[in-house]
């Protein structure tokens, strides 16, 4: 092997170790960058040369850099992220709803109980005008509790409605960014190179998209395709097919795909999926139960009232004003009676008669048309709200723990270990120093060789 060849190998080694140091440097620099996959340097032996029948090594070749990543873990993280975001959205919403149903001086259960105790008190002393007024006040308080609870639910629904628009806007922004990366990424891949930083950026954007909705990625050499869980395309190659919104007659924002088809009910997962589920299913179901309770209780109370005789000797008039239809009853229920003497305590119109009070008291335990007593119906509603919140919260906790595990796995494969990079730094530094020493040595050998002809003359 000639000195020239050796010098060339030394220079290649310097280049290779310099490249390795660059990879280490980049890894350390990005050790805290979200979504960054650590890079390794690709070194290869040089092709050996034949020197008179002797095969000689020709040094090292810097082939490039490779990001270390596991697509499967990446997909699992995306999937778990959408589940977590959906659960978080529901938990946050339900945690704002549940205090309304928690036992307090203002909740429906307490006010309903207060109405029955006021009726019991009136039963013991029907001539007492204070007792009559107390029934009227308790009825008003119960109606107010229904109104307030309904208002909390509808306000929450409107707040979620606004969030749908915000989420769609974020989704469109992300899909545009992903689409913009696509041509460069496709070019890299088509040339057989690793996606590297661009792939990391795309993965990170897809992860952010997963936090908003259930998204599925189909990777091809030419271009990646992103669709929602139900197949609605979001990104096809370099083209972003943004979602649109429109407001339905009921004021609820509907999500349309790029062709204008309504995909709202098909959305699932992510913040948008969780938000839509709360807005379109959970809250309407709770409102329906609440409306049914308000309507049936008000109707049953009015029926007892009309079967009795008021303090003026007339048949009992309507106590609660309730809409003819169930929908909106909780929001609209009110006490239409203003004169406490009109409470139909008796059955004979006598001043001290309480013949109708037993029927009023029985309302507390007699089943409504929905099948259970008012108190049990409300208790079921409380159980339902509590269970929904507990389940959403548990789901949120479980996905958080699961994501931690997945991120640990991701980190295990792709994460930057400072300790590892530090050792690499020492390794590459040593190798670089050694290669430099080789170059210096060969340089010295050149000097010696060049001086061979002049040494005796001196």
């Amino acid at each position, binding site marked *: 092997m000639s000195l020239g060849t050796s010098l060339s190998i030394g220079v290649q080694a310097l280049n290779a170790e310099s490249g390795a140091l660059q990879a280490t440097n980049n890894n350390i620099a990005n*050790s805290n960058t979200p979504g960054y996959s*650590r890079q390794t340097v690709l070194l290869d032996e040089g092709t050996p040369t034949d020197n008179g029948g002797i095969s000689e090594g020709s040094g090292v070749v810097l082939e490039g850099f490779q990001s270390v990543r596991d697509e499967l873990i990446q997909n699992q993280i995306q999937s778990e992220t959408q589940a977590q975001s959906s659960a978080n959205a529901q938990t946050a919403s*339900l*945690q704002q709803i*549940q205090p309304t149903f*928690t*036992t307090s001086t203002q909740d429906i*259960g*307490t006010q*309903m*109980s*207060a109405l*029955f*105790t006021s009726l*019991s*008190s009136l*039963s*013991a*002393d*029907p*001539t007492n005008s204070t007792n009559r007024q107390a029934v009227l006040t308790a009825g008003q308080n119960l109606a107010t509790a229904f109104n307030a609870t309904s208002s909390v639910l509808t306000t929450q629904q409107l707040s979620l409605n606004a969030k749908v628009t915000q989420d769609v806007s974020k989704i469109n922004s992300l899909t545009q960014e992903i689409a913009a990366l696509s041509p460069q990424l496709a070019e890299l891949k088509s040339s057989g190179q690793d996606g590297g930083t661009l792939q990391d950026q795309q993965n990170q954007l897809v992860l952010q998209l997963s936090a908003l909705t259930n998204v599925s990625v189909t990777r091809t050499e030419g271009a990646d395709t992103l669709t929602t869980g139900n197949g609605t395309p979001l990104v096809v190659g370099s083209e972003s097919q943004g979602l649109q919104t429109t407001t339905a007659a009921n004021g609820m924002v509907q999500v349309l795909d790029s062709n204008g088809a309504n995909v709202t009910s098909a959305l699932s997962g992510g913040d948008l999926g969780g938000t839509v589920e709360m807005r379109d299913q959970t809250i309407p179901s709770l409102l329906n139960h609440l409306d049914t309770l308000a309507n049936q209780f008000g109707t049953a109370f009015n029926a007892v009232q009309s079967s009795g005789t008021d303090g003026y000797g007339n048949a009992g008039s309507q106590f609660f004003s309730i809409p003819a239809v169930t929908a909106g009853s909780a929001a609209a229920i009110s006490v239409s009676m203003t004169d406490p003497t009109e409470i139909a305590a*008796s059955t*004979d119109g*006598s*001043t*001290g*008669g*309480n*013949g109708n*009070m*037993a029927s009023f*008291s029985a309302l*507390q335990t007699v089943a409504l048309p929905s099948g259970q007593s008012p*108190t049990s119906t*409300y*208790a079921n509603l*409380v*159980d339902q*709200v*509590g*269970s929904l*919140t*507990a389940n959403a*919260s548990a789901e949120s906790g479980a996905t*958080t*723990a699961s994501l*931690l595990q997945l*991120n*640990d796995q991701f*980190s*295990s*494969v792709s*994460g*930057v*270990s400072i*300790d*590892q990079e*530090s*050792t690499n730094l*020492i390794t590459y530094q040593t190798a670089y120093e050694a290669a430099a020493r080789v170059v210096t040595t060969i340089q010295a050998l050149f000097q010696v060789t060049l001086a061979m002809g002049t040494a005796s003359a001196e």
Partner: protein
Amino acid sequence: MRVANMVPDMQYAMQQSQQALSTALQQVSTSLRVNQLSDDPSASAIMVTSLAESANVDQYTKNISSLQSKMQTADASLNSVVTSLNSAITLGTSGATGTVNSENKAAIATQVQSILSAVVGQANTEYQGVYVFGGSESTTPPFVQASTTYTSAQGSSTVPLAMTTPLTPNSTTTISDASTGETMSFHAAAGDTIANLETAINTAVTAGTLSPGTSATIDASGNLSINSSGGVVVTTNATTLGVMTASLSTMVANAYAYVGNSTVDSVQIGESTSVKTNLPGNQVFTSGANVIGSLNGLISALQSGSSTQIGGATTAITTALNYVSEQRVPLDSTISQLSSQESYLGQETITLTSQQTALVGINIAEAATNLSQAELTNSAVLAAAAKVLPQTLLDYLK
């Protein structure tokens, strides 16, 4: 497994231990295990019904307290009536002896009249504005001195009422008879006239509800006049008649008509327990062995009757006395029931409170132990984080 970064795991562990610490702290500070519905949805739902039961129990207890006073007032009145009747029997017995002259009998009659007034006073006993023996018509005195003539106010000599004068539709005219102890009510339908009322009165006379001779006529001043020799009390809300008032000087001495009703109210004092809370005055004082009637009879016998008649009237009072004593039995039984139910409800309150504590509360010792454990865990996590996280290879490279 290759470990690149321990920070996320440590952060998660710290978050979990701090969450546990926060929960333990909340449990200690509130003494509650369930601070929001999601902590235990099922317990929260049971709490709704349990709290409603508690509120009911509290109200039943208040009802009992109020009813006890009312019932005891009624019982005390009947006790006074018993005492009065015993005095009347003593007086009647002495009046029945053949040696008592007519002057002494008149004096005794006067004493019995005082007793009758006292008994009527007791029959009109009021408790917090409620006449306890008025049935459910409890805001007006149930026993009113009867008159032979009641006249309306709406007619006049220029515009007299007539038998064809229509009565106000849906109005009610009530005639309470002191002699029979019964009441007749006439509810006017649309198109009914005074003639219909008169027919109803005649029917009631035939049925024995009203005394023989009770009649309805239009008097010289053009008003409706209800007449009864034994004495009646008439009320109406027919505006075409106006207020019915007793004509001057027609009150019948010692005759009282019952203007209450027979309604017996019930009040719930437990989940499935109710008590009758009043004793209608007609049941106690004018029906069965008629208390007021028997006293009236003794007065009449003392004023003009023979010893035998006085003796008979005295025996009638004895019967009335026994009757009143019988009437007190259910009353006393109710008072006793109220008392035992009050004790039961007291126990029920304790049971419900225990149930509620078990549902959502937490034993303070358990809460303190939980807090201590949570503190320990959190300290351990923080100590581990402080020890592990700063360590890198760089610390050892010179």
